[in-house]
């Protein structure tokens, strides 16, 4: 399966989000670059609202991620609860 990735700015807002992504995606690997964290995963990567809320102790709207996103790879689908990146082949 091809790699999907999501790259986020390195800052206080993204720290718990990255932690949540690592909890929810066993194949996720973190690649820390200057001022940027790139998370690679095998074929599929899910960002779950509930996990972020548990880690931060506040309500979280997944659209907030718009502010800190740098780049990504893969097809995308976003709902109230999840952002999914995936390849079909």
């Amino acid at each position, binding site marked *: 399966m091809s790699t999907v990735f999501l790259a986020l700015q390195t800052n206080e807002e993204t720290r718990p989000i990255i932690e949540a992504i690592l909890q929810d995606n066993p194949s996720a690997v973190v690649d820390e670059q200057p001022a*940027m964290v790139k998370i690679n995963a095998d074929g599929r990567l899910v960002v779950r609202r509930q996990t972020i809320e548990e880690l931060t102790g506040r309500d979280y709207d997944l659209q907030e991620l718009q*502010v800190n996103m740098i780049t990504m790879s893969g097809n995308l689908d976003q709902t109230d609860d999840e952002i999914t990146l995936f390849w079909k082949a």
Partner: protein
Amino acid sequence: MDMTVAKKKLGLKERYAVMTRGLDWTPSYQKMEDIYPYIAYEGIKIHDWDKWEDPFRLTMDAYWKYQAEKERKLYSVLDAFTQNNGHLNVTDARYLNTVKLFLSGISPLEYVAHRGFAHAGRQFPGPGPRVACLMQSLDEIRHAQTQVHAVSNYNKYYNGMHDFHHAHDRVWFLSVPKSFFDDAITAGPFEFMVSIGFSFEYVLTNLLFVPFVSGAAYNGDMAAMTFGFSAQSDEARHMTLGLEVIKFILEQDPDNVPIVQRWIDKWTWRGYRVLTLVAMMMDYMLPKRTMSWKESWEIYFEENGGALFKDLARYGIKMPQCAEQIALEKDHLSHQAWSTFYNYAAAANFHTWMPDEDEMEWLSAKYPNSFDKLYRPRYEFWREQAAKGNRFYNKTLPMLCQTCQIPMIFTEPGDPTKICYREVDYKGDKYHFCSDHCKAIFEHEPEKYVQAWLPVHQIYQGNCFPEGTDPTVEGFDPLAAVLKYYNLEHGRDNLDFDVSEDKKNFAEWRGQATKNI
């Protein structure tokens, strides 16, 4: 007691439907083809516009909210930057030439992208792509403005940035990025979406923004890093738009597949040629390197683009053929480009230099198959000549490729010792090309590319001198007249970094910042 139950807010999907398709209507007294006149002539067949959906499901109300947040973050950083003399924190003043290249080569394209997406969005009968294009159009003008604001803090202290837009429309090498975008916005709305939305944003943008922004971060440039990230945060949405548009077109009708494939082939190559400037920036212009051009091509195109084209194979779309030639060029591209700029440093709006010993070592480690054999000896010779007082600035004009407008500097695929020339006779004139791919693009649309405004031809025709110039007077210096036309000052804005005012001023100011004088 009755409890007042707050009415449940709409979910993301419902909100998206209400705020996009829900705002659309079917015209009753005007014909669709009169309202959307450009939608049919490219041959793309769309049967159901409602099948297009933005996977982020972003609506305008949310868009304003998050964009405002980005602006607040950006401008507070820019304030801190100026309050702390941020310009003195960059690794070394050579870095500033990267900023000059970006401001005159890329920022004006953001503005053209703004116009392009406004135009394309207006032409689409579907509300989904129309709203997404509106957002991207607004993003692009935001990028143009924030980049100009951020870089204006450097313009207060350093040379070559004073009239970037004037330069963009005139300076010889800037016709490369300019003509690329002009080519895209003069295409039909579907081709524009495939060219910029898909080929540039999805396939190639990571090669432009990620190295540039991490380059800024590595080199202590807080201003460029921040506007870069702020722009980049919109980029993920642009990439998604590009990918969704292409999947949508391909799913609508099998007849669309060959048309789209031709566009992908064309625009991947066109975009790659523009990235020559980025390749050179990564390997030569960043005092502290992030990764080599070759490494970045391997990660972002070969690996990531490979995954993308594998995914698109189910529609019958193939990896563009030009990828094979690009793979052969990756050991040579940046070196051939930097050699050219070193030659023509008298006619550019930034400074050049020869890599020092450490940098040569880095280059030979990153390019073991090509650097020591082909490029290091050339540089050592030039460095030696410069030390003897024989620094040679080339003042004759190069032949340009009719399609990409880059001087004919590239070598034959597979033979880096031989310059690649191709030509075509068309209606009694001869046209020159740097490659088979640029030649094929011309041959498919000759009437478009014969109109190219080639800077070298224009200079020879006398169209690039200030008004009232008489080129027949004795002792006429064409380069001096061209620099005046560019609004560049000889000896201040051009030539080598070592003899520049930038170098001298930066050293003095940094000295003042650390000593009590």
